[in-house]
């Protein structure tokens, strides 16, 4: 399935490119990201904790960035697998100057398999687009907000969620949930969800989002 869209980011292309390819920034902006570790040249291993309501789990994926042309854009390939299915995606990110802002265009081609593919293409793309929008908003906040400059490669804890509505960096999965689900308990033995594998921005969101939807419905 194909997914495309655009976003406006309030910073110049250099800073945007840096944010999007910086593991520290990504780990803060991706919902539930627990760790994003370099395992090779532009290749990362990611662990994400995601879920909806009472059901959460951890899942792993692998992301590789290629064709990096600073500050024009890059291609990312992401793979992930889990009980709910598999995702293998390639996403092209293009950045264009727009005065002091940057226009970002993303174009992804994803192959979704297994039970997650059973929910219908339009549902998957709608959820992915929604979460992509939220992710880019988070990146935008990171670029414009009064927070620490971009870190180098490292881990960030998803559990240190900022208090809702404090206007700063929205960290952790909770902030991307509708208000009524915040603060619910996380059972330790939550079943595994779709691996986010798609460590790149929107594919991770696709996995997290769809896995979350699946988790919510799968109470077998």
């Amino acid at each position, binding site marked *: 399935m194909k997914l495309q869209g655009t976003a406006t980011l309030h910073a110049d292309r250099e800073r945007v490119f840096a944010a999007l390819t910086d593991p520290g920034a990504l780990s803060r902006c991706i919902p539930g990201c627990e760790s994003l570790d370099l395992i090779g040249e532009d290749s990362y291993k990611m662990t994400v904790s995601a879920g909806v309501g009472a059901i959460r789990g951890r899942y792993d994926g692998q992301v590789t960035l290629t064709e990096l042309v600073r500050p024009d854009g890059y291609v990312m390939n992401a793979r992930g697998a889990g009980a709910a299915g598999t995702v293998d995606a390639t996403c092209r990110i293009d950045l264009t100057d727009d005065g002091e802002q940057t226009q970002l265009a993303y174009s992804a081609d994803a192959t979704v398999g297994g039970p997650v593919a059973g*929910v*219908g293409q*339009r*549902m998957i793309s*709608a959820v992915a687009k929604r979460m992509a929008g939220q992710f880019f908003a988070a990146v935008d906040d990171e670029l414009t907000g009064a927070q620490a400059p971009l870190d180098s490669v490292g881990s960030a804890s998803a559990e240190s969620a900022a208090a809702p509505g404090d206007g700063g960096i929205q960290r952790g999965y909770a902030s991307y949930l509708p208000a009524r689900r915040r603060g619910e308990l996380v059972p330790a033995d939550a079943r595994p969800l779709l691996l986010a594998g798609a460590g790149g921005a929107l594919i991770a969101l696709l996995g997290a989002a769809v896995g979350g939807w699946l988790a919510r*419905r799968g109470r077998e």
Partner: protein
Amino acid sequence: MTTKLFGEPIARREDARLIVGKGRYLDDIGHGALGVAFVRSPHANARILDIDVSAAVEVAGVHAIYSYEDLDGPMAQPLPVLIPHPSLTAPRTGYPLANGSVSHVGEPIVMVVADDRYLAEDAAERIVVDYEFRTPVVGVEAAERADSAVHEDIPDNVAARLVQEFGDVDAALLQAPHTVSFTQTIERSASMPLEGKGVHARWDAVDESLRVYTSTQTSTSVRAAIATKLDLSLDRVEVIAPDVGGGFGVKIVHPWPEELLIPWAAIRLGREVKWAEDRREHFVSSAHERGQLQRITAGYDDEGRLLALDAHILHDHGAYTPYGIVVPIITSTQLLGPYRLANYRCQVDSVYTNTVIVTPYRGAGRPQGCFAMERTMDRVADDLGLDRAAVREINLIRADEFPWDNHLIFQDGRPLIYDSGDYPSMLDKLRDLVGWEGFEARRSAAAADGRWLGIGMALYVEGTGVGPYEGGHVQVLPSGKVLVSTGLTSQGQGHETAFAQIVAEELGVPIEDIEVHTGDTRRFAYAIGTFASRAAVMSGNAVALAARAVREKALRIAAEVLEVDAADLDIVDGVVGVRGDPGAVLQLSSVAVLSNPLRYAFDEASRAATQFARFASYDQPPVPDDDEPGLEGRDYYSPVRSTFASGAHAVIVEVDPGTCAVTIEKYAVVHDCGRLINPRIVEGQIHGGVAQGVGGALYEVMAYDEMGQLQNASFMDFLMPYVSEVPQRIDIGHQETPSPLNPLGIKGAGEAGVIPGSAAIAAALEDALGIRIASMPLGPSQIYDLIRAAQDGTAEMTLNSARRSQEEST
């Protein structure tokens, strides 16, 4: 003495559990299943540009949202044309979910699966579909004009041109002493079962098998359709029709999109999925029928003998043709009725319109055919100043002229040959029953009092018991219970009673010991379905034959055990005994035990069948050659062609001059469906049919506007008759001309009551008002308009009304 049950009006056995809430209808099944709602087209003719589900995914509890792009393999292909026909030159069917365009309001576009139906509807409401609107085609005249097309590649909107003819109609019309030409119309109505459609599906991942419950009239065909479309082996699919709250034809269409989509979703999601439609859905996404425009020309002589009849009929087929042209075929063949005719041509143009599909509704085209012929008879009588019954009588096929070959091919692909009947006798009985001869005096006396009374009649012949076959299985269990299974389905016809009566009498067992199962592919897998007044004829005969096989085997086994001749044995109340000798008896249950030689006994009864318990010949194997263990029989009935029932209705109406309300003062029915299994059930069928006939004649229309919007898609505005509108008393006279085509001599009775309703009531209204009636149904508003037009001199009056005025003035 065996208790005689065939022909007895015993109370129905299934009613007790149904009326105390122990019925198990589709919506009673699967409380834990996911619920489904559809986004259905609000436009009659449009291209789909985009489907935006982004707002819908925010509804909690949504599991899946599907559109055409998600369908693959056979599911992505159009729905099948069930009954192909050489004249159906431009067939068209829809897709399970709309593929880029929609052709009627109500066509399904998106399927939402959620925790329950409420959430699914909430999500469906938030889905935004972007349409490119196109001009809809509504009504047969617009379809015929073809200013625009329903389907772009069928510019003339014609699905089929069907011609049925014999003799030389054009020459005969030229030579006829008199001719009459007229145009008349019948409006759409619909089956409107109390229970709508519903589907429940469960995929068993361990067995890799699918079980589907659907409120259908044909579980075996739905099974085949699902297996094909979902690419499953037939043995991995079971389909069961649970208790069904009425079908009346609409549930013979299959596979409905939902019958495919719900199992498809159940497999993809690994969950039970269920859908049960609401009433509005049923109005806009099931099927309608009856709508036709008829242009008729008839030639006749001075006595009213019909010499030639030429009918050109425009049949409104709706947006698609999944059921082929069965309704046009039935109209054009059954139009002939009980009359002799040497020259006939009927051309039916089936045209597309941007409205709901048209498939059989009780009568399935016969009411329209009856309307055409009977109103022709009325016109001939009016023209010549003859009695309407006398004109009919002179045209009837005589009782000694059977079998009567009409030289046409019927809807079963077999010759239209009337096997038996006695139409003159039927007409005589009807005249007596309704008081035909003395009515004119009543009418003119009432007219002098300012009351408008009228009488009308209509006769019909109905082809019933169409093939290709049905089967029956009868098994006596060691407990003594008798299981009877047949593959066709039940929607309230009393099959659990009628089939039990047949088996009870054939086998000689108490009816309380019998359990009847229908519509379950697990129990009986070869079947066609319940439609065309065929169940009693087809399955009735099949279970009779199966029961006879069981009786024969039981007597053979009992004869061995009792050491007597099988010819001396009878089965009475479940006991096998020697005729005239009260001592030597064997319970049928014991015979069932002994029919299955056992090694292991697990209860007292089965001990008798084990190897050391009874003496057996050492030269014979326990199960001889050509024999099988168990006391069961299976047989099929396949008819050489349909068997023809017949009937005649007469009705006396009163029209209120002020309010134009129509009251039915008397409704008389003479009915011939051969031998009756249960007269009470047949009477119930007649009552139900008459109610639907009255509804169609006086109240029911599908009010489509020129944009293809159905304006009365609810019972607030679609008027079905209440008890207050149906005649309080229906006088029924019976006649039995047995069928020579099947062992039990029975003919079908299911649809008869509805066939002549519009024709008879139209004739009665015309008689009461003196104004020509050329379109049905007729409500008070239309009657008022007719009366006004008559006063203005713009209405067509009957010649009879002029004769009456003359008589009154002399």
